[in-house]
């Protein structure tokens, strides 16, 4: 694996840009697989940290790719990563938007959209599993995950409060 890391970043995220049905969260397992398991760019802990930082930051989830890119190759890495992740899907979006009226009611269009729904659900579920495995290395951490999941599922609490409480528990060395 002596290839240029910028090229590896570019090819990883350019492919994800077009295959991540369900958005950036569906692409998390592939980012983890490449960054941690295959390329050994970072540890599980660092990957989970970057996901946490991207969730704390304003803006779309996809900006996690800039953190991964920066870690691998500095500012050039961040620029390559976000460009590769954003530009292919944007070009596609631009051209599909211009022809959308012609096929929006077509049967194949409906079938593609309906078919992708369960695929993206499975991918996002896999993201949750990968992240929980990367982040939860003791019982207290797993309890924070479960408590957050229950709170977010059954109430409408602002996630920032949950992050604040979880951060304080971390500060208190519980995780």
């Amino acid at each position: 694996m002596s290839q240029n890391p910028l090229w590896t970043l570019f090819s990883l995220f350019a492919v994800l840009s077009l295959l991540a049905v369900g958005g950036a969260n569906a692409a998390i397992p592939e980012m983890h697989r490449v960054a941690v398991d295959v390329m050994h760019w970072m540890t599980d802990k660092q990957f989970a940290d970057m996901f946490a930082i991207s969730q704390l930051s304003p803006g779309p989830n996809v900006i996690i790719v800039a953190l991964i890119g920066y870690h691998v190759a500095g500012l050039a890495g961040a620029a390559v990563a976000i460009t590769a992740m954003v530009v292919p899907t944007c070009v596609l979006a631009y051209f599909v938007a211009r022809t959308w009226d012609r096929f929006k009611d077509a049967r194949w269009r409906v079938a593609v959209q309906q078919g992708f729904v369960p695929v993206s659900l499975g991918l996002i579920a896999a993201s949750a599993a990968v992240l929980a495995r990367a982040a939860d290395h003791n019982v207290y951490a797993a309890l924070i995950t479960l408590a957050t999941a229950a709170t977010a599922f059954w109430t409408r609490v602002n996630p920032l409060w949950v992050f604040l409480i979880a951060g304080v528990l971390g500060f208190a060395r519980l995780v």
Partner: protein
Amino acid sequence: MTNDEFNETFALSQFLPGPNTINFSVVFGSRFGGVAGAAVALLGLVGPPLVIVTILGVLYERYGDVETLGHILSGVASAAAGLLIASVAKMASPMFMREWNSGPPVAILAFIGVAIMHWPLPYVFLGLAPIAVALAWFKR
């Protein structure tokens, strides 16, 4: 932009692969100003967060080893995983509560392939998506 136009733009950005909010900004921007409009909308959405997250990235690379910071981020990461589980549960419950059609098996196969077998996403996607689309095509 009317309500209908908004819904149309939203449906289109859901249809496309990749980050949905990004797609939305491009489709929205292109309706008003073509390529330039799309570029401006994209930069407006991604630019400022990108600056912020890059600064956070620089700080993390420098101070990520500080033990206290590591513990705080661990707590937040565990909570973030929980939030994702909750949104998965919200998406899954209508699909799994209704009569079992092709949806749940496809979702479970995608999950097993990626989370348990650790197969590369492109293989799982290219193997599963055509089957899932075909099943949706023949459903009615």
